[in-house]
Structures are given as structure tokens and as C-alpha cells.
């Protein structure tokens, strides 16, 4: 492998590490904990899958992100927030399943790569439901996993004996990418909405302090 290719591979990993660290950092995790989790996702992605019958779970691509979801649900401020995150996950899963079925099957025919669409759907659902970064991560991760399970159930129901792989591409899996993308979308939309709200308040109330402005969870 040429030097350029090695640099390219290392750069790709660093970018994912950097983006992932920033995303996790925004969800009740310290900088170092976020970095540790990213390392776990990378290392766990290389570990052998946990196989349970016809289901194969990757440590970095599924178990660690699922663990983060459980942690976020436990640390949620209210039961309402938990409910929204779970409802959002089911809605995201439904949207992912529907989009997979109705979108063209060839990537060149699709406006946005399916690998990224699911994260954007998760982010949109989570933002609309709860304006929450934490909710967005849960929707992105659980939404894709639930949609994968739904596809497997349909396959098995049709007599197709196909393994269900969850997060098998490790750090590069759609489960991880969707979780991060959902948070990034939620973050971007949130920032735009918050800035618009601040500007409106400033126009109406000259003594308004931005500290009073609503913040995302």
C-alpha cells in the first residue's frame, strides 16, 4: 500500500474519531469519556461478533452504541424524555423501513446515499419530537437497529434463512453513522432555530439576555 493510501486510511479514522468524540461530548459525557467510547467503538468493531442464533451483534458497531443509548435513557431528566426517545426510535425505524422499500435500489438513482439518509431521518424525528441531541442519537441508533430487525423478521417469515447482522461494519457501520448524523443534524437545526429565536427576542426586548434562551438537551 502506498504512503498516500496509508495517510488516507488514517485520516478517515481520525475524522470519524473527531466527529464521534464531538458528538458524544455533547451528551452528558466528559471529553475523555467520549474519547474512550470512540476508542471502544473502534476496537470493539474489530472484535469477533457476539452470535445469538441467527443474530450477530458487533461490539463496536451495535453493543457500544446500544449501551450509550441505555445510559442516555437512564440519565434522562424526565419520563417524558424517555418516552419521546423511544417513540422517536420506533418512528425512525418505520421511516427507515419505508424508505428502504420505496427508494430506488441503485445508489446512483438516490439523491442522498441511503447510508446517510437514515441518520438524517433520525435527527429530524428526534428534533421535531423533543428538540434533543440525546434523543437524536437514540433515534439514529435504535431506529436503524429496529428497522434491521424488521427486515430480518420479514425475511424469516418468507422462508429466507438470512443472518441478521447488527452493526457488523463496526465504527463504519450505518448504526454508528446514523447516530452521529442524527445528532449533527439536530445540532445544526437547533443552532439555527435558537439563533432565530434569540434574534426575535432581542428585537422585541432590548434588555434580553441570551442566557435566558432555551438550550438543547
Amino acid at each position, binding site marked *: 500500500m502506498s504512503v498516500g493510501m496509508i*495517510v488516507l486510511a488514517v485520516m478517515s479514522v481520525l475524522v470519524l474519531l473527531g466527529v464521534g468524540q464531538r458528538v458524544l461530548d455533547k451528551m452528558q459525557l466528559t471529553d475523555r469519556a467520549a474519547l474512550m467510547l470512540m476508542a471502544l467503538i473502534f476496537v470493539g468493531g474489530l472484535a469477533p461478533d457476539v452470535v445469538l442464533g441467527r443474530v450477530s451483534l458487533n461490539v463496536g458497531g451495535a453493543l457500544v452504541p446500544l449501551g450509550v443509548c441505555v445510559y442516555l435513557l437512564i440519565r434522562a431528566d424526565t419520563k417524558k424524555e424517555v418516552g419521546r426517545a423511544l417513540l422517536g426510535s420506533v418512528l425512525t425505524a418505520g421511516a427507515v423501513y419505508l424508505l428502504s422499500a420505496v427508494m430506488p435500489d441503485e445508489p446512483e438513482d438516490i439523491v442522498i*446515499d441511503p447510508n446517510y439518509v437514515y441518520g438524517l431521518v433520525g435527527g429530524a424525528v428526534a428534533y421535531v419530537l423533543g428538540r434533543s441531541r440525546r434523543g437524536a442519537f437514540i433515534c439514529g441508533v435504535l431506529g436503524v437497529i429496529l428497522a434491521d430487525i424488521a427486515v430480518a423478521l420479514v425475511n424469516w417469515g418468507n422462508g*429466507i434463512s438470512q443472518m441478521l447482522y447488527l452493526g457488523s461494519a463496526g465504527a463504519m457501520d450505518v448504526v454508528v453513522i446514523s447516530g452521529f448524523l442524527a445528532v449533527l443534524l439536530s445540532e445544526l437545526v437547533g443552532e439555527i432555530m435558537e439563533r432565530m429565536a434569540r434574534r426575535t427576542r432581542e428585537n422585541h426586548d432590548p434588555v434580553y439576555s441570551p442566557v435566558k434562551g432555551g438550550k438543547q438537551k
Partner: protein
Amino acid sequence: MKKRLVLLVLLCCMGAFPALSEEAQEGKVYTIQKADGALITHLSGAPDVGDEYIAGDNGHFRITAVDHTTLTAQAEYLGVYVLPDVSWLDENAQPVTAQRRAVAMYCTHSDESYIPTDGKSSDEDRGGIYDVAEEFKAALEEEGITVYYSDETHHPHDAGAYRRSRATASRLVEQGVDAVMDIHRDGIEDPSSYESTVDGEEMTKVRLLVGRSNQNAASNKAFAAQIKAVADEMYPGLIKDIYIGKGTYNQDLLPQAVLLEFGTYTNDKNEVMASTGHMAQVMNKTLYGGVTGPAPAAETKEENTSAWTGVIWLVVAVVAGVGIYAFVSTGSGKGAMEKMKGTFRELGGSVTGKKKE
């Protein structure tokens, strides 16, 4: 909450309707032509403005307009595409013994089949494409190459198929392979577009498809060009062409990744399988040069250039992404610069452990 739910339903509808209208184009074959209407090629699926095409005679085109009503696309001629120099093929090749040679292979669209021999174009159990893949695997092994082959299925054949096959591709790439190949058959109706006589033998051609939407795009394209250059020298008429289209095709997982279209669904599968032996020899020469020692210098240079293009692409994408976010959240150029600096400083600090928590 009710307001949000209504908004959510509207959002889902907005997402679904363009998708449904796109679905209407599924399976349709587009005609790519020059400005004067002269035929260039056919493509199963919609081309996109900016896609590139390298014809069998190395004519290089770029799609400039697409009409989804008439299923036609216009392409501008960019000149003759200069393939990599493969003059080293003329040298007396020595068998490689010291070097570990390994490639990976899988089939994303598990249903793809050939009507004349399989009876149908799509088999929801296990398509005829697996027979082609297994024949190709055996031919590669005859060349002394270790093949990490997955016969996993990725049903159904929908927009999620590449997502499911990503897991397979990723597991294969982890084996430390030199290249990863996704085996397909085309969806063009006319079988003659793939029929060929190579080395006096009747067989079908192979179309190479690479995506242009990932950081490895330049490397993937260079790899495909290298395959065509070697094939044109060894077995003229074997490689149909190269299409560089929108999409990732999981080729972001390895710089040397390519999608191979072995014939089309109206071809006889036996003729398709007849091409696998020649294709295996081409892959062997492309990847290993057939000589002991390092890869030819020209190939390494090409590979390096492509990889550095990918690195630059990645850096630009990251800086642009952070910049857009910073500008959106602050609303001013100065504020955006400050926020960008802060983001990179924080990230650097957390990596080195210098930042207070």
C-alpha cells in the same frame, strides 16, 4: 406536542413522495448520447449530471443533462482517457511466491440471475449471480490468490441492500485483503451489448462501476482504470467500459474496491462464466504485476496521487462542515472563525488530555 407530531407526519410525507417518484425510474434503462444524438451507451438506472464514463475505446465523457421523461442523458466528450502505462506486462513475468495475495468478494444483490439459464432475472432465494461469483473465485484461486468470499445473502433487493452488504464487505476487508469486489449483473435488456469474442472464445464483457461519492473515489477510479488498462492489453474486448456514478457502493471501505457487472440478465450464464477465467488473470496481473517484488512504479505513483486527492477532499469536507456549522450558530464570519478555532482546540485538547473537564 400535537403540533410537532403533525409536523413530523408532514416531514415523513415530504421524504416519501420524492422517493416514490424516483421509484418510478427503477429498472429503467437510460440512453446516454452525444449532443448530436449519437449513442454512447446504455445504463440501467438513472445517470446523474457529473457522472463520468470511459468507453471501451477509452473515449471519456461527462454527463451534462438528464431527461427522466425520455430516459436519455447527454454527455460531453472530454477526450481520450489516458489509461495507466502497463508496458511492464511485456516483461517476462515470474510467479509471485513471497508475497501474500488476497482479495475479497461478495454479492450485494443476492437475487440477480440470468433469464436464459436461471429462468428468471431475480431469484428471491439465491440468484444465479452466486454461480458466477463462485466460478470467479475458483479462477482466482487457480492464479494462486487467496479469496475471502462471502456467500451471505442481503435480501431484499431494495435501497437497504448496500447497507446490509456493508457488514459483509467490512468483515471481508478486515482480513487484510488487497482488493474487494462486489459481483453483479447488469439490468440492460439487450444481450448483444455485453456479448464479445475474447481470445477466440465467446463470452460476455465486464462493466466496471465505481462511485464518486466517497473519500476513496479517486483511488477506486484509478484502480478501475488500471484493471481496464491491463485487460485491454491482455484480452481486448473483455472490459466493456467504466462508469463512474453517484453513490458509494461501500467503496469507501477500501481504496481498491470495484463493482463488476458480469454480463446482463438476458445473457446466457455459461457465457458469463466463460469470462471469469480471463478476468481472474487480469485481476492477478493488475494487483500483483505477475512479478516478484514491489508493484510497478507507475502504478504506485498513480495510486499515491489518487490517495492524496482523497486526503485533500477529506480535509476540505471537514473544514467546510465545521465552518458551515460555526457560521450558522454564530451568524458572523468573525464569530465563526472563533468557534472553529475553539472546536479544533477543544478536540486537540481532549485527545492530548490537556483540556480541563
